[in-house]
């Protein structure tokens, strides 16, 4: 009798821990490959760790150097910020615009969607970076096409003013994944809303601003955060296409971290740099989330009016 009860209890408690068994792989990975590195990099950022020897505590010295003596940092921050502010809005605006068009009961939508999505699956690869480097080089294809119209060779990648923009184009070229997400959000906007607005005599421009945009704001929020996170950490394009040049005009922040860590092995210094980027990204994300209740419309919250 007692035995049976014990058994039952035991099985129940086993059942209680069963889930832990399934998530165990993630838990191990989380502790060893996320949490520990996260803490360790915070610690390293206050040391002079340089691969060899033991890390020595240097207090805020790394941060002082970053903000007062390292000129590259300010340049990299500026360049990265400009890149993010060009690439993300352009990409999202274009993705939304095309998604709107495709939502107008377009015939052959499947083909368009596939074609537009294609660059997204290839965009991050070295092959595409190589292609970009060639297309936009001084005697590359883009310039030879422009010469038909009598437009002289443009220094797409060799001019410090244009190079960053050319890199942003590579990001915009990959608008497809954001577009697909927008498209599925647009499909969920109830058609009755448009119909009743039409009856009331609203123009399509007005419908766009007062129905479509408010209803897909959660998706805009999602896309914006995802794109910001990836744009701040853009590496391959700049590394392969321009190598950070000309005159460090495309020396994105990650390139700077990469150089400090894996070229000069200044692990402590590079960790400090990475925490500054983390801080900036957190600020951006927090501002977006904090202000989101001003501009993001949630369906379940809106019902109770």
């Amino acid at each position, binding site marked *: 009798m007692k035995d049976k009860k014990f058994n039952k209890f035991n099985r129940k408690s086993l059942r209680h821990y069963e889930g832990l068994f399934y998530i165990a792989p993630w838990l191990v990975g989380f502790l060893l490959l996320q949490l520990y590195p996260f803490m360790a990099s915070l610690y390293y950022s206050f040391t002079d760790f340089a691969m060899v020897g033991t890390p020595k505590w240097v207090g805020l010295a790394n941060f002082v150097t970053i903000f007062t003596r390292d000129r590259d940092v300010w340049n990299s921050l500026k360049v990265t910020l400009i890149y993010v502010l060009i690439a993300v809005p352009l990409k999202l605006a274009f993705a939304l615009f095309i998604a709107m068009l495709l939502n107008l009961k377009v015939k052959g939508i499947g083909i368009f969607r596939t074609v537009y999505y294609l660059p997204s699956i290839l965009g991050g690869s070295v*092959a595409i970076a190589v*292609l970009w480097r060639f*297309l936009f080089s001084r005697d590359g294809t883009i310039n030879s096409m422009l010469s038909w119209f009598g437009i002289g060779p443009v220094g797409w990648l060799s001019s410090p003013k244009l190079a960053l923009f050319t890199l942003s184009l590579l990001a915009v070229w990959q608008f497809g994944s954001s577009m697909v997400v927008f498209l599925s959000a647009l499909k969920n906007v109830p058609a009755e809303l448009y119909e009743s607005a039409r009856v009331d005599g609203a123009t399509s421009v007005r419908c766009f601003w007062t129905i479509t945009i408010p209803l897909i704001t959660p998706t805009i929020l999602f896309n914006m955060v995802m794109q910001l996170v990836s744009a701040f950490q853009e590496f391959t394009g700049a590394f392969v296409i321009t190598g950070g040049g000309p005159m460090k005009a495309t020396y994105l922040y*990650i390139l700077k971290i990469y150089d400090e860590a894996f070229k000069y092995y200044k692990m402590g210094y590079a*960790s400090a740099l990475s925490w500054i980027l*983390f801080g900036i990204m957190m600020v951006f994300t927090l501002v977006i989330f904090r202000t989101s209740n001003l501009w993001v419309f949630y369906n379940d919250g809106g019902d109770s009016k």
Partner: protein
Amino acid sequence: MKRKIRRFLMYSFLILVGVVLLYPLVWMFLATFKTNAEIFGSSKFLPTQIRFDAYIEGWKNGGGAYSMGHFLANTFRIVIPAVFLTVISTTLVGYGFSRFDFPLKGILFAMMLSTLMLPGTVTMIPKYLVFNKLGWLDTYLPFIVPAALGNSAFLIYMVMQFIRGIPRELDESAKLDGCGSFGILIYLIVPLAKPALVSVVIFQSLFHWNDYFNSLLYINSSKKFPISLGLRLMLDSAGNNSWDQIMAMSVVAILPCLLLFAVAQKSFVEGVSTVGLKG
């Protein structure tokens, strides 16, 4: 009439956008048949003849001592185990989070979601140092072991959401038939969650195939280079006089992605949409 003109304009615009987007890819493909002089000298779109020299030479030369085939094989050595293990780990973890109650579940789940926002840049240096200490640098273990440990919160979340959509009554009836929790996973959940798992396979294959940054960090002997590093090596060593070969090998490098996309296009695009919706 006005409506017709409008539709015509819209289709023209959509087609124009498609042409502009595809132009670089088509151009690259055609350039592989051109001679180097043709690529630079003429602005003609079509090649004057069909020649495969660029493919043959580029494949043989690769970068330095190894052929492109070698780099391609290396890439498969990373992608196949990494994808396989990711599918297993994300399925287990997704199942655990969606079907069980256990101590600290809320906190652990919140932590998993928070790693979605954690930029890889912050953890990259200590991770590198750990792999270094374990002697894993210049092996494929830094790609394979994290995959076995469910390192993509994004994919776990996707699978989890999908499993949540499977009615729990099915679990109950399977239990009555004498299935244990692992049996339920294998015989019930996995077959029903196949679309989500296919998305995992595609996302991860593309990621590892195209991944440049991690390979750059962890692999340093050219014998072990995957295709991304191989291409870069070729670009650096060949310089300006063999763009035809570089383009040909770039086409070879993106071909597997294109094939995968062609085969699984439908479920892939749907996967992206559902993830977006859930987010």
